[in-house]
């Protein structure tokens, strides 16, 4: 067992290398520069290629090229850079090309700030790019998950031939804590017979997203949609903490969920039964799992570092028969356990 005291960004980069990353392209942007810096140093050592692209637009398109050849590819950026990649992400989805995209998100809109934020939830989960598609999105909340979910993202990307997104934040990326570097046994990149390899007289391969004839694009769109339905069946990840007897269940992801755990302990010490539901896969969202909590609990407390985005999904899933409260903090200071405890008391009148 390889136990390290590691930075989140390094954990992610190590996971990429352990997953067999062959090609990375990216463009510098705070606060994710540790990832390319790590990979520019380490990737060549394992026979991979690191390219500093001229822009995020170029990065994502270089990925499209390298992915079409059947290799595992990754890029990383932060919010404005991810916006610039939206056309390319849509092309990857349309061309059914796997790729891992990392958003160490910062604070928008515009140039905004470099603090932690969850302002990109909508963009990440509801298609920042044009067209009818969803891509899987994973939100780590610890250095360990930076590793584990990156492995997962590569796996899911290949399995469904889709780009996959890691939605991280600056805290998890720059912080250090303990990490067990363990590439799970049994996970293997699949054969990619669709990819460009050596041709050797085989039939011509064409990789494209243009579908003009008849209703072939309709068929293609439904095919993409089916993948999403499949993912809903197989790739949902979530975490529940003391929900069984909870009077109020906090719903939060990423960094905020981490703080919320402490809040729950604090609250229970004070006789208040809080619980936590944390979606780890934001797409596909653990809808059934969240809804099933309404059997035992009628109070839900959504907390985000934005003005309310995942809230939309929670409202959709839970419906109007339960009591949903929201606390939003579009700020680089992650709220403290006390903050959340006090807010809970205030919003639920206790």
């Amino acid at each position, binding site marked *: 067992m390889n136990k390290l005291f590691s930075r989140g960004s390094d954990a992610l980069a190590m996971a990429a290398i352990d997953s067999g990353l062959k090609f990375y392209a990216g463009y510098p942007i705070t606060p994710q520069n540790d990832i390319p810096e790590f990979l520019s140093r380490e990737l060549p050592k394992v026979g991979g290629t690191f390219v500093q692209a001229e822009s995020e637009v170029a990065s994502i398109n270089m990925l499209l090229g390298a992915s079409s050849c059947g290799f595992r590819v990754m890029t990383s950026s932060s919010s404005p850079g991810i916006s610039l990649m939206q056309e390319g992400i849509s092309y990857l989805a349309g061309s059914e090309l796997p790729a891992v995209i990392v958003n160490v998100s910062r604070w928008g809109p515009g140039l905004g700030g470099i603090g932690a934020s969850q302002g990109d939830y909508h963009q990440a989960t509801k298609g920042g790019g044009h067209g009818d598609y969803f891509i899987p999105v994973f939100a780590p909340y610890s250095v360990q998950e930076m590793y584990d979910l990156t492995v997962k993202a590569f796996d899911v990307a290949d399995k469904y031939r889709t780009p996959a997104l890691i939605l991280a934040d600056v805290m998890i990326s720059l912080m*250090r804590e*303990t990490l067990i570097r363990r590439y799970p046994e049994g996970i293997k990149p699949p054969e990619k017979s669709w990819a460009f390899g050596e041709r050797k007289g085989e039939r011509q391969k064409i990789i494209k997203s243009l579908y003009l004839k008849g209703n072939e694009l309709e068929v293609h769109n439904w095919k993409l949609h089916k993948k999403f339905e499949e993912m809903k069946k197989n790739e949902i990840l979530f975490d529940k903490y003391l929900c069984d007897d909870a009077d109020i269940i906090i719903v939060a992801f990423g960094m905020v969920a981490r703080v919320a755990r402490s809040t729950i302990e604090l609250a229970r010490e004070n006789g208040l039964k809080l619980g936590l539901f944390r979606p780890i896969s934001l797409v596909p969202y653990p809808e059934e799992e969240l809804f099933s909590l309404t059997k035992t609990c009628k109070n839900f407390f959504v907390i985000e570092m934005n003005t309310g985005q995942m809230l939309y999904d929670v409202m959709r899933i839970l419906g109007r028969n339960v009591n949903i409260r929201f606390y939003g903090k579009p700020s680089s200071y992650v709220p403290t356990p006390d903050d959340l405890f006090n807010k809970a008391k205030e919003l639920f009148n206790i």
Partner: protein
Amino acid sequence: MSSKKSFYIDLVFSGFGGQGILIAGNLLCYSALLDGREVTFFPSYGVEMRGGAANCYVVISDRQIGSPIPSHPEIGMIMSLPALKRFENVIRSGGYLVINSDIISPEEVEREDVNKIFINANSISKDVVGNDRLANMVMLGYIAKRFSVVKKDSLISAIKEVVSEKHKKMIPLNEKAILAGYNLKLT
């Protein structure tokens, strides 16, 4: 530290680059890991590259840690005037500013509701290792002891984790400086 109430302590380290701020922070982390605790370390970052500044946050607890950037840490290890200016108002009320008084004169500190501890760390470093370069370790040693952050043994054993291969021979000096701080009696 009672067995009922859980252990939690948060610190900020701040000074100029070159003063070993991040090394001190890291060393504390590795020590706490040896103590079997949960630890987070968060280095500063900013839009501007300033030649000067270096800071980091350390949180140590026996439970899973929430934010690695405490809004109001309890303890600040302050090694430069800009560091003081930046973090003076960040320390929690009733918390501690541990200040290198060889660099910052006491009258610079304005806040009233925090405890101020002044250590002439440069001088002490000079005394024990012959130069002022290990002032950081002196301060760290003091903090470790004063706030019961980590065990002495852990602190000493962890040195090798943060001193790079080619500076190996510096380990005994670091140890000396740490112990000097650890054993410091302030009135």
